[in-house]
């Protein structure tokens, strides 16, 4: 596939067929705990999408221009997590300074993002699958968008479920996992549309 189409194919694959949450189980912790309200889910999802797209691109640059030339690839876990943490901190300071509205909308979610496995996961996948810079950026962006779609769908379903009678042992996390299972089955319907390795 040529250079222009491949990043786009990876983007759509990351949103639908290889959804980072529903096929790789990444970002489950915040997915299960935050998905009770539609608005907070949307806020967190947008923050995740933004951070994931940018940190995947930054990590690509650092990995290929700093770690590979000095043969320090084994340090990538530490370096990636520091970059993510530092970037999140930076964003928090910038939006606190310049946009109070945005800070109150997104600010509370930012600390949660540092420990979101999906963000680090996207960077690690990008290294293992040997993506180019553009592909990495679109992969990070698509994965974030896929996560946003999944958590918003989940929040919508959970709001409807509030009035339903659920067995006591299944209430909370149990029912959320079962919904996630059905959502994963629905997303399997996209299989064959696009395949990436």
């Amino acid at each position, binding site marked *: 596939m040529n250079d222009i189409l491949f990043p786009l194919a990876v983007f759509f694959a990351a949103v639908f067929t290889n959804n980072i949450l529903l096929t790789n189980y990444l970002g*489950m912790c915040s997915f299960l705990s935050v998905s009770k309200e539609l608005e907070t889910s949307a806020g967190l999802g947008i923050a995740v999408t933004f951070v994931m797209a940018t940190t995947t691109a930054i990590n690509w640059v650092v990995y290929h221009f700093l770690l590979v030339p000095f043969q320090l690839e*084994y340090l990538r876990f530490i370096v990636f997590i520091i970059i993510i943490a530092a970037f999140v901190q930076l964003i928090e300071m910038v939006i606190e300074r310049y946009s109070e509205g945005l800070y109150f909308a997104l600010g509370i979610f930012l600390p949660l993002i540092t420990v979101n496995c999906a963000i680090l996961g996207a960077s690690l*996948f990008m290294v293992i699958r040997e993506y180019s810079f553009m592909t990495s950026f679109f992969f990070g962006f698509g994965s974030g968008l896929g996560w946003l779609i999944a958590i918003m769908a989940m929040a919508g379903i959970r709001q409807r479920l509030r009035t339903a009678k659920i*067995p006591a042992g299944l209430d909370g996390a149990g029912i959320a996992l079962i919904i996630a299972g059905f959502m994963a089955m629905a997303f399997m319907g996209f299989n064959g549309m696009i395949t990436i390795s």
Partner: protein
Amino acid sequence: MAAGMIKKTFLAPLGKDNPVFVQILGICSTLAVTNKLENTMVMTLGVMFTTALSSWTLSVMRKWIPSRIRMMVETMIIATYVIIVDIALKAFYPEMWKQLGPYVGLIITNCIVMGRIEAFALQNKPMLSLVDGLASGMGYAYVLLVIAFFRELLGTGTLWGYQILGSWWTNWSIMIMPPGGFFMLAIFIWIVREAVFKEGTK
């Protein structure tokens, strides 16, 4: 230190304070590899190693860490142990290292590791923290091993790669695909909460 205290610390995460059933923590990085028993075993051993040793290290250092940069120090130490696991796996078991792919690195963001450090290791003595970390890792490991046992058995008819069920068995391929992991964990949590914690009867 009383032996009773160690025993209590050891048993709590295996039973009533199990990190998976009670807090639903840390399933992110490992649920993905539960489609095979062997992969799960290797991953959970890595998690146990990391939780136990990073709890111990942080507990030794707890009086010297300024609380403002606490999280950063914790992440560094966790990452160091994960790198050790990653390098050891790459050296001694390269096929498994390939199969696990990015998931070994994702132990860093596993909430159990940092959760135990924050909740326990920063207030307790090093030996007790080591026991607590190890027990939390084990409490987590057995839940995932049970899930992996059923997923591999029902999904492919094998256990640890050996054929167990005969040719009469039709593989439930949904079990080794992503939805199977969600369903198995949900069913397991349901059974444990109803049977052990008696949530339905309160």
